[in-house]
């Protein structure tokens, strides 16, 4: 019988002091060629529009096999439609990038928040969708290193304030459908008067504003989209202040479901009952609120199999004087708040958490957790609000059952920042997972993982290269790796850490000398591929086109 990893490790826990962590990152921003300060209104922020920051997009736009970086960027209250503009950075390898925005033809300048990437028109190249304050935008990758704005032709361009978005094949017909979280109705000329937090006047929102309705679009198969919200059960759910989402088969019935994190309101879990029919199981499943029954801020979302039961669990980051939350997926229908069991609550109480990701940074066979932080209220101090404005990232190493907050992992870890999101990917393709961090009106930060061992990792890249298939990255696939009797699972999840996208590949730490590695990929359409890899230290592409 195969053992789920966390509990196998738990058995090995002793009363001895755990060894020092080997997780180390180096801030290589200066050498990376990514010299960009993002814009999100002014500093200090004065309205709710200015505090969310913008996302990051991982995209292999030039098809050379590594992940490039797209930054949608924001704007200012004075001119929300004409900010400094989005940027595209080509990955040249070895953690070096070149700004190719001008050559790419991208002239996007609208105040942007979320970004997602996928082959919307099934032409074999990844396109970019940008969720904006104002009409959303779809940029088509023309295949020659340039992009064109095809928003109107594609039937997109919802004017509501979009935050996070995700492509996924919701109806399992092979093309990529689209879900967009919308936040609230905001008129820059009429912000609400200040609210009160811990006795201080602060920026108002989201409470007091009208929540905006999320959008769910069906891809008609030709790269054009039709809004299905009205007839599928999404638009009829109580509108929430949507901030982030994760699309994966939570229920285990083979159909992709949609988790939507709402700010200060109950989260939605749109369980798919039939193609284009959803039931909101948020409250009934227990994932809408935390274990105290309280609605939370729900910015960052990370999905992983934390308890080893083979089901995707959901971690969310939240406001200060609250905790981040881990909802274990018990049986596909019920989620239970087990934040404390895994040690994830207390270290987050003084933080406002944003983008988060589970990654096995040290290749010890379990996933660690990195979340980036920063307050929304410029006047936040420990004395006034129990929480600073600029905050350090929270790096939690998994040791046995519980996660432990690390104080040291390189100089970057000690630097307080006003961060909003991060993306995680093996940018230099050396086998460990690096990160790029984006904050509020501050420079992007490029972090290189210095694990650098050659033979204790495996990257599985699910692909679907069948003609006419837009879901080329197999969003929704489950990847299972078994080595030395230990099984680990990952999902290719639609959505991302916060207003960003996940890397379309599954990274594993694999113990050295653990023998042959069994790799199983369950594709979104239910087809299963099983292969064996002789040794770790390699990237393995598993193509749906080769599965009968």
């Amino acid at each position, binding site marked *: 019988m195969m053992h789920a990893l966390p509990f196998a490790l738990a058995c090995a826990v002793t009363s001895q002091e755990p060894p020092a962590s080997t997780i180390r990152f180096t801030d290589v921003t200066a050498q990376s060629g990514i010299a960009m300060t993002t814009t999100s209104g002014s500093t200090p922020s004065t309205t709710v529009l200015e505090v969310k920051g913008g996302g990051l997009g991982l995209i292999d736009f030039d098809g050379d096999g590594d992940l490039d970086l797209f930054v949608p960027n924001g704007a200012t209250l004075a001119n929300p439609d004409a900010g400094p503009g989005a940027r595209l950075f080509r990955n040249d390898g070895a953690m070096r990038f070149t700004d190719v925005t001008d050559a790419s033809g991208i002239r996007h300048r609208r105040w942007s928040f979320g970004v997602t990437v996928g082959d919307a028109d099934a032409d074999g190249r990844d396109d970019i969708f940008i969720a904006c304050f104002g009409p959303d935008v779809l940029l088509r990758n023309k295949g020659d290193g340039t992009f064109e704005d095809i928003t109107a032709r594609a039937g997109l361009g919802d004017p509501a304030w979009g935050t996070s978005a995700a492509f996924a094949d919701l109806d399992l017909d092979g093309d990529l459908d689209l879900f967009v979280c919308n936040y609230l109705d905001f008129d820059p000329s009429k912000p609400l008067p200040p609210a009160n937090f811990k006795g201080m006047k602060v920026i108002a929102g989201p409470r007091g504003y009208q929540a905006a309705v999320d959008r769910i679009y069906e891809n008609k198969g030709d790269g054009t989209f039709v809004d299905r919200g009205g007839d599928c059960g999404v638009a009829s759910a109580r509108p929430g202040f949507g901030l982030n989402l994760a699309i994966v088969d939570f229920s285990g019935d083979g159909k992709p479901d949609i988790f939507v994190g709402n700010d200060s309101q109950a989260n939605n879990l749109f369980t798919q009952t039939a193609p284009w029919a959803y039931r909101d199981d948020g409250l009934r499943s227990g994932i809408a609120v935390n274990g105290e029954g309280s609605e939370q801020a729900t910015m960052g979302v990370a999905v992983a199999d934390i308890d080893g039961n083979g089901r995707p669990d959901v971690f969310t980051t939240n406001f200060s004087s609250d*905790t981040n939350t881990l909802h274990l997926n018990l049986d596909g229908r019920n989620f239970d708040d087990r934040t404390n069991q895994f040690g994830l609550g207390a270290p987050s109480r003084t933080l406002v958490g944003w983008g988060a990701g589970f990654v096995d940074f040290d290749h010890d066979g379990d996933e660690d957790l990195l979340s980036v932080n920063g307050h929304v209220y410029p006047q936040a101090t420990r004395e006034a609000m129990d929480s600073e404005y600029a905050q350090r990232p929270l790096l939690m190493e998994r040791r046995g059952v519980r996660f432990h907050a690390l104080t040291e992992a390189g100089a970057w870890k000690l630097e307080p920042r006003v961060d909003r999101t991060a993306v995680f990917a093996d940018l230099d393709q050396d086998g460990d997972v690096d990160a790029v961090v984006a904050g509020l009106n501050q420079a992007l930060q490029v972090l290189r993982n210095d694990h650098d061992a050659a033979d204790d990792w495996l990257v599985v890249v699910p692909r679907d290269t069948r003609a006419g298939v837009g879901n080329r990255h197999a969003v929704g696939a489950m990847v299972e790796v078994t080595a030395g009797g230990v099984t680990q699972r990952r999902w290719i999840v639609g959505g991302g850490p916060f207003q960003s996208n996940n890397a379309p590949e599954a990274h594993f730490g694999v113990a050295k000398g653990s023998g042959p590695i069994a790799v199983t990929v369950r594709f979104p359409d239910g087809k299963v591929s099983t292969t064996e890899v002789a040794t770790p230290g390699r990237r393995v592409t598993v193509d749906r086109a080769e599965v009968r």
Partner: protein
Amino acid sequence: MMSRGRFDAAEVTARTVLAQGAEIDRAAAILGISLMKQKKYEEARKYLERARGSQQPFPERSHASHFLGWCCYHLGDLEVSRAAFEQHAKDVPDEPDTQFGLGLVALGEDRLEDADRFLNKSLEGFSAPPKPDAVGQARALTRLSDVAMRRGEVEKAEELLERAVKASAVQHETWSKLARVRDRLGKEKEADAARANAERILQALGRRPAEAAPAPAQQSTPAQPNTPVQPNTPAQPTTPAAPSKDPTP
């Protein structure tokens, strides 16, 4: 002022006294408690630490560690919180809210046996004559249901929560947990009724827009909550009450 819940006024008074006589540790204790009650835990912490270490005789000194325990709990410093509560439990062995605090710290550290023991002791204290504390009982029972759920004892959790809402029906957390437990047991109608009660309490607290009012529940109706309302405040965890024996003069 403290006993009337006027913590902001108590804070001003304590600051004034401290400004005139910086050496008066009792003023520091009052200031720390008033700040703690206003959820300003970091600032409260330093005054409570000073009060705890004071050599001056004043009635609040022996309770400073209790309030310090709550501050550190809310700041996520469970180790210091536990030590502070343990100190208070030595100094004032019969204080059920300190046992409750120790129970919550144990839950935070996933020490289920300890959580069970402390919360049961807390329940015992809140139930003791001559003045049983119904709200305290409900809080202890609600947290004991957490222990049961963590152990997978869903029916037991339901029984504990039903006892909790009988003791005091004004805790939205209790109704919400009861709804969750009933969902797990497949009792959908009963779950919805419990959820409706939680919603009604949140509405009464001003944490729900009026248009979101659910239909009246068929179950026992919760009384109006007496907790102060803080509109536009992000979701907060359960706020502990003061020790049932008010240490303030």
